[in-house]
Every structure is written in structure tokens, then in C-alpha cells.
């Protein structure tokens, strides 16, 4: 039996390093890598199920093609046939329109391995094309962090263990970041208090010393109210404010004129006693770790809310070294050259750059394109027809497209509507490098087994396709197809990366992950300058705070669609070991809503609004706010069918506002 070192590429905080145990070319089990300082020899439930993921009866084995699209009339084709159809289309569109702007891709977080930027690299290698920009997840928070701190901040999450107070705003690590919980519990064993602020009584809230339920989208109001109490009681860090902040006088003025504790209590739903207790804790307990969850930024107030929490953390004197800090995300990629992502394509005679479309409005903007319209779409590491929004626009877009190619491991909802589906490898079948958006470890992922049937990685597909493309049309692509995966890995490990991660060569990563040195962006740097952001008027959440459903309310419920324990969005739905979470939509509603709509536990109901409807099974959750419903994310019956993203026009780009949708429910009628 051989043992290989792998790293989980899922869109998850933990980016665990793992060991795979291989017998005769087959993985017989996996374990956590004890040399990884964050996951410390353990995996999550999904990680321990990887043998079922790799050898899954539903996994795609061969390239397939359906005709007509959506008919389900799939036929196995050879890779050569698939490549030649794709190449013919690319070349024909190039002749038709005089450029490759009619060709585009949609790719996001299905696999976070650095070599999966081969998709971007492949399209770059064609010269100007149509590409998505932006980020559905983190833009609002990153902008808020930058406007408060002037830079990204990233603390080692392992250090949460030293905190005396941990305040989690809108994150549920017991489900989404399981490995962080041990650091939190260790802090608690030493006397720390854990506070969780969330509209939902989550699995993490259940473990908190103090749980504070808040109306969705009103976290910022709560933070400003606590700030006001600290200011009025002179319980703030004057020295830090005098020496390391800007805009303090204006902020103090804002708080004294605009923030009224009684009104905040009504809007947020948090009692004055609760607000006072939080203020007391923030003023007393140091070090204090403030964790801003991604849930907060899924609505139009996201950026304002995160700025407000930053401000509270600053005011309470928790930003200096040894006193805590703000945890949000670690931008590990910014240290790396990301050669595939940044691959420079050939120049076009009269088009300077690629055509960029906002990934959060991809379908909407793509339909509007003309001269040339978008005609060929490549989808990889993504399942937009489960996980994006505004599906009506996607349907329109698909109608306009002449060729849709999806690369995936399973027949997703997106794959079902594509022309050609190409089978992708798992991370056990190709080498890769993995960095985390939370902790600061760099992991190498070894190839442990041969590719499953005819599956290929995004990089291998890029290599094969560009090579054949150039055979048909010399110099069409400048992708260096001769480079092996290992060559790309070596090119990521630059002298500065070697220094940053104490590496002599990438080969050292075969013996275990390496931790990034702390000098850069070290916590609480004395040169930090904090800016007090004065909020725009935070949009009222009055519809949630009234707490009574009036008969004229057309869509009375705020829809929240959190991550489930045994899935990453639509991934993992086919694993029978994880089937205690069935791949069916569950709608959780309050006792109040259940009574008002005569809905009982286990009943089939319809969740609907002007955008669409889905069938779901009702579950009564007695801790839910009256006007909030929760629906899980299911691959084939996605709740995103009723979600349309509307950007906050005041502030430019934002994360996708998945939690701004309002819906209604009723008993299912066949």
C-alpha cells in the first residue's frame, strides 16, 4: 500500500491536507494529514467520504454529447471528436466575427487548486475573448475591510485560541469551518466567552455562551449601537484613536446624532439588555477576536454592516497586537504569480482587451452583448444553473448560444443543459497546489491514482485543446501546452514564495504543508491606520422587524439559503454515505408561519415569488424569526430559481446578494 499527500480543493475555509491510502491503483481510505497545522490530522464528514466521491456510480467517465440540447439523448463521443467540434466552432466564430469575443467562459470555485486557472489561461491564450470578472462571495467584505483598514487583513486563525472573547457575526463554523471549532473551544477551556450573533439559531449559536438573535441585515445597526454605548461611557481606546485612526470626530458626531439605542433595539430585535451585555463584553475582554462571517454580506447592507463591525472592533481597542483583531478572510493568492490566471495571450490587431462581464450578472449582461454576441460558452468548476441566480436570464442566454461545453465530474443541472460534457478528474488524479482563504498553510496535492476512465483535469484539457487548435490554425493559441503540471507548480514557487513559506523547492511540500511567515501583514502592525467609515443610511429591515404578516404582504418572507453540513453548494449530492441529508429541498419556517399558513411538519409546500417556484418539504423551526424562511441548497431542485440579484447601486460592485430575496409559501397543489 502506498500513501500519498493530497489537499482538498473544495470552496471551504479549511483547505485540509490529507493522506490517501492506495492499493493497486485504488484509494481504499483517506485520513487527515497530521502535519497540517490547521486541520491537524482530521477531515470533515465530506472529506472522510472521498472514496465514495472518487468511485461514485454517477461519476462521468467519457466525453458525451446530446442532440438536441436538453433532450437527454446523450451519446458517448471520443475526446478527438469533442475537440474537433469545439475547435470548429471557435475557428468558425473567429472567421464570422473577426475575433474571439464571441467565445467566453464561466468558471468559479468548484475546485480551488491553482492549476485550475488553466481555464482562464486557455481563454487568455486565444487573445481577446469574453470573461467574467468579480466574485460572488467576497467583494462586499473585501471592500469594507479595505475602506476601514486600507489593506486586507489576515490573522492566523489558530491564534483565536488566545482570545478571551470571541464574537462571531454571521458565521456558522460548526457547519462550514469545523476545524476552527477546536481553537474556539480551547479558548473557552481557558476561560474565554463565545458570543454568536446571527438571525438563525445555528449549530454554532447552540454552542455559544451567549447567543444574540438579530433581524437579518441589521448587524451594522447593532454594532453602531454598541459603539455608541462605548463612546458615551468613555470605554474606548483613546490612545489608539488619537494615533492610528482617521475620521474619528465625524464618526463620533454620526453616532451621537444618528444612532438611537431604543430604535436600534426595535430594528435589530435585540433587547437593550443584550446590547448592553455586548458592550460590556467588548469593553472588558481582551484579547477579543471578532469574526465577520460571509453570511453578513449576502444582502444589500453587507458592506455597511461589515464596516460597522470593523469600527466597533477598532473602538473597543481590539486591533493592536495582542488584543485580538478582526477575522474575515486571507487573500493567499495575492502572494503568488498565478501564472495560468495571468497568462498573457496574443495581441489582436484592433481589439485591445477582453470583454469583461460581472460574474454576478453574467447571464443578464451576456445576453445584451452584441458585435459580436456571445455564441460559445465554456463552463468549468461551476454549476451556475444550481448556484447562480436569475435563471430566466440563463435560459435566454442558453437559447442564444450555439455551443455550450461543461466540464464536470457529475451530471449537474448545468451539464444537463449543455451540448457537450467533458469528464473531470478529482484532486487525487492530478497534482496541484492549494492555498486557503482562511488559514495560511500551503499544501501540495500529489497525484495518487490514475485518472478515472477518460477524465481529465482542466489543465490537461487546456493543453490538449490548444495543441489541436494550433494544428488546425497555427499560432491561434499561445498556450504553452508542452508544460507539464509539475512545470506550472514549479513556476508558482518563485524565490519570494520560497522565502515566504520557508521552502527550498516545491518538493519539500511532499513532506508536509508549509506555513506562511508572519512578517508580512503581521497582526496589529503599529503602522496600521484605521479609518472610521461613516455609513450611508443603512436600509431599514422594517419588513423583517414588524414580525407580523399582513394579508396584503405579497412576499412576506426573507429567504436565507445557508450552507448545509454535508454539501458544498450542489456538490456531494450523490454520495450515499452523506445521504442522511437527502438531496431534497427542505424549507424551515417559524411556528408562527406554520400556523398562519396551516402547514404541518413534513408537508409538501411551494416556495414561490415572481421569479419562480420550487417544491420543498416543510420543517418547523421554533427558533426562526417569524418572517424568515430557510431553504437548503439542492443541486437538481435549486432554491436559486426564485433568487434574482440586485446590486446596491450606491456602492459599485458587491457580492451576490443571495439573502435579499423575498418569497411566499403555500401548501403544494399538484
Amino acid at each position, binding site marked *: 500500500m502506498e500513501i500519498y499527500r493530497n489537499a482538498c480543493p473544495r470552496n471551504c475555509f479549511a483547505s485540509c491536507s490529507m493522506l490517501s491510502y492506495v492499493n493497486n491503483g485504488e484509494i481504499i481510505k483517506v485520513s487527515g494529514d497530521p502535519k497540517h497545522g490547521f*486541520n491537524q490530522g482530521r477531515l470533515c464528514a465530506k472529506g*472522510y467520504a472521498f472514496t465514495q466521491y472518487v468511485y461514485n456510480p454517477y461519476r462521468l467517465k467519457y466525453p458525451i454529447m446530446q442532440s438536441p440540447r436538453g433532450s437527454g439523448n446523450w451519446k458517448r463521443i471520443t475526446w478527438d471528436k469533442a475537440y474537433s467540434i469545439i475547435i470548429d466552432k471557435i475557428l468558425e466564430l473567429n472567421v464570422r466575427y473577426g475575433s474571439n469575443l464571441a467565445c467566453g467562459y464561466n468558471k468559479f470555485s468548484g475546485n480551488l487548486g491553482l492549476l485550475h486557472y488553466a481555464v482562464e489561461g486557455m481563454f487568455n491564450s486565444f487573445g481577446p475573448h469574453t470573461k467574467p470578472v468579480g466574485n460572488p462571495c467576497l467583494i462586499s467584505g473585501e471592500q469594507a475591510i479595505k475602506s476601514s483598514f486600507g489593506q486586507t487583513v489576515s490573522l492566523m486563525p489558530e491564534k483565536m485560541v488566545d482570545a478571551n472573547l470571541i464574537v462571531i457575526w454571521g458565521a456558522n463554523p460548526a457547519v462550514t469551518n*469545523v476545524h476552527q*471549532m477546536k481553537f474556539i473551544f480551547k479558548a473557552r477551556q481557558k476561560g474565554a466567552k463565545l458570543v454568536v450573533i446571527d438571525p438563525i439559531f445555528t449549530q*454554532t449559536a447552540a454552542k455559544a455562551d451567549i447567543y444574540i438573535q438579530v433581524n437579518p441585515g441589521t448587524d451594522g445597526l447593532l454594532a453602531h449601537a454598541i459603539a455608541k454605548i462605548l463612546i458615551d461611557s468613555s470605554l474606548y481606546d483613546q490612545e489608539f484613536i488619537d494615533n492610528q485612526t482617521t475620521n474619528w470626530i465625524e464618526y463620533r458626531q454620526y453616532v451621537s446624532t444618528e444612532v438611537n439605542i431604543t430604535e436600534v433595539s*426595535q430594528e435589530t430585535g435585540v433587547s437593550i439588555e443584550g446590547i448592553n451585555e455586548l458592550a460590556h463584553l467588548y469593553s472588558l475582554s481582551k484579547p477579543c477576536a471578532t469574526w465577520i462571517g460571509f453570511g453578513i454580506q449576502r444582502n444589500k447592507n453587507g458592506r455597511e454592516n461589515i464596516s460597522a463591525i470593523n469600527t466597533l472592533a477598532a473602538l473597543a481597542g481590539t486591533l493592536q497586537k495582542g488584543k485580538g483583531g478582526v477575522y474575515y478572510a486571507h487573500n493567499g493568492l495575492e502572494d503568488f504569480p498565478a501564472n495560468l490566471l495571468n497568462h498573457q495571450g496574443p495581441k489582436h490587431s484592433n481589439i485591445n482587451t477582453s470583454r469583461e462581464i460581472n460574474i454576478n450578472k453574467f447571464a443578464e449582461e451576456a445576453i445584451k452583448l452584441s458585435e459580436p454576441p456571445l455564441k460559445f460558452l465554456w463552463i468549468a468548476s461551476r454549476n451556475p444553473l444550481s448556484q447562480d441566480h436569475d435563471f430566466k436570464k440563463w435560459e435566454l442566454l442558453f437559447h442564444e448560444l450555439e455551443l455550450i461545453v461543461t466540464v464536470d465530474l457529475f451530471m449537474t443541472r448545468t451539464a444537463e443543459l449543455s451540448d457537450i460534457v467533458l469528464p473531470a478528474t478529482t484532486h487525487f488524479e492530478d497534482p496541484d497546489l492549494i492555498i486557503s482563504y482562511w488559514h495560511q498553510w500551503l499544501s501540495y496535492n500529489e497525484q495518487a491514482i490514475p485518472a478515472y476512465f477518460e477524465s481529465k483535469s482542466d489543465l490537461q484539457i487546456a493543453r490538449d485543446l490548444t495543441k489541436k487548435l494550433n494544428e488546425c490554425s497555427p499560432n491561434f493559441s499561445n498556450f504553452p501546452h508542452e508544460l507539464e503540471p509539475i512545470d506550472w507548480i514549479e513556476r508558482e514557487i518563485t524565490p519570494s514564495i520560497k522565502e515566504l513559506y520557508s521552502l527550498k523547492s516545491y518538493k519539500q511540500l511532499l513532506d508536509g504543508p508549509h506555513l506562511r511567515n508572519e512578517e508580512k501583514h503581521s497582526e496589529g502592525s503599529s503602522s496600521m491606520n484605521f479609518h472610521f467609515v461613516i455609513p450611508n443610511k443603512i436600509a431599514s429591515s422594517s419588513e423583517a422587524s414588524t414580525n407580523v404578516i399582513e394579508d396584503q404582504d405579497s412576499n412576506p418572507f426573507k429567504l436565507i439559503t445557508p450552507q448545509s453540513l454535508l454539501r458544498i453548494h450542489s456538490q456531494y449530492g450523490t454520495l*450515499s454515505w452523506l445521504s442522511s441529508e437527502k438531496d431534497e429541498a427542505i424549507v424551515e419556517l417559524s411556528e408562527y408561519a406554520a400556523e398562519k399558513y396551516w402547514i404541518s411538519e413534513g408537508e409538501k409546500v411551494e416556495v414561490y415569488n415572481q421569479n419562480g417556484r420550487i417544491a420543498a418539504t416543510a420543517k418547523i423551526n421554533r427558533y426562526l424569526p417569524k418572517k424568515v424562511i430557510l431553504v437548503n441548497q439542492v443541486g437538481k431542485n435549486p432554491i436559486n430559481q426564485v433568487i434574482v440579484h440586485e446590486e446596491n447601486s450606491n456602492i459599485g460592485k458587491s457580492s451576490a446578494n443571495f439573502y435579499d430575496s423575498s418569497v411566499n409559501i403555500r401548501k403544494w397543489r399538484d
Partner: protein
Amino acid sequence: MVKQMGFVFNIDLCIGCKACEIACRNENQTVSAVKWRKVSKLTDDTYLSISCNHCSSPECFRVCPENAFTKRGDGIVQINSNLCTGCGLCISACPFGVPQYDPELHKVSKCQMCYPRQDKGFLPACIEACSTGAIGMENLDNFCSREAVSTIPGFPDSRLTNPSIVFYPAKKRKRYFLN
């Protein structure tokens, strides 16, 4: 040396993440219908993770017509699958619903506390997988803790079989639900 190895389960530390449940499957590659360890919700804010409790007086052992069950010197209750006929008497006798019928092999199987791992000096897979330390293992013959209790509300009556598990119960927490 005769001893009684057993599980120590800390309710406050269990976040219901099911890593133990799936790590058990990963280690033992059990078929989907067979669950040697199960995580379930105990109350609105607590979870229970249990496998075979390797009871002092195991009912499975007593009722099995084939004498397929044995108890090792360290207290682990084993089932010899060669002797099992799949009659299912043990399944109905066990107060904890532990023995599992394998529809492919037509036999019963259950948690054996990863004795092959233990014999090599490793912890059972569930304990190794538990990132918060909610599940531990002790020789209960000489385990003594002022805070540990032998049962908790929601756990089946343990008087009949004397299961080898002890609990650290949950502490009371403070909540501010919406006004």
C-alpha cells in the same frame, strides 16, 4: 489484564459535524445501509454520537443462538461474522439499536471499537476524527471524574446492559432571542 474500555462523550464539545460517523465508514468501508456510528440530535442544541457501547452485560451476547459474540479482555464486544446467520435477534435485543443488518452479506455487523487499529496502537477512527475532542476513550474500570455521569436524558435506559460510555453533560447557556 482485564479491563473495560469505553467511550467518554462530552456533550458541550460535540457540534454534530458527523466527522466521526463518516470516518468510521471510511475506515471500515461499510455499505450504505450499515451505520456503525450514528450522530443524532439529542435536543435543540445538543447532539449525541454513539456506536456500540461494548456493554458490561451485552444483550447481543446473551441472545445470540450461534454464540457469535465474544467479549475481549479489554471489554470490546466482537461479532464473529463466520458464525452469524443474520437471524436478527441481537438487533431487536440491543437497547441502543447498535447491531446492523448488512443486506448484501445477509449478516449482522457492528462497531468493534476499531480493535485492529487499537492492537496496532492507534485510536479508533471516530476518536481520531473528532476535531473538538468530544469523543474520548478510557478504561472505565478505573475512570473517575466528578463531572462525568453514566447517562443523560434522551439516552436509552442503561440499567439492563450497563453500557461502557460516560457523559459530560451540557452546561446552561445564555440566549437573547428576538424581541
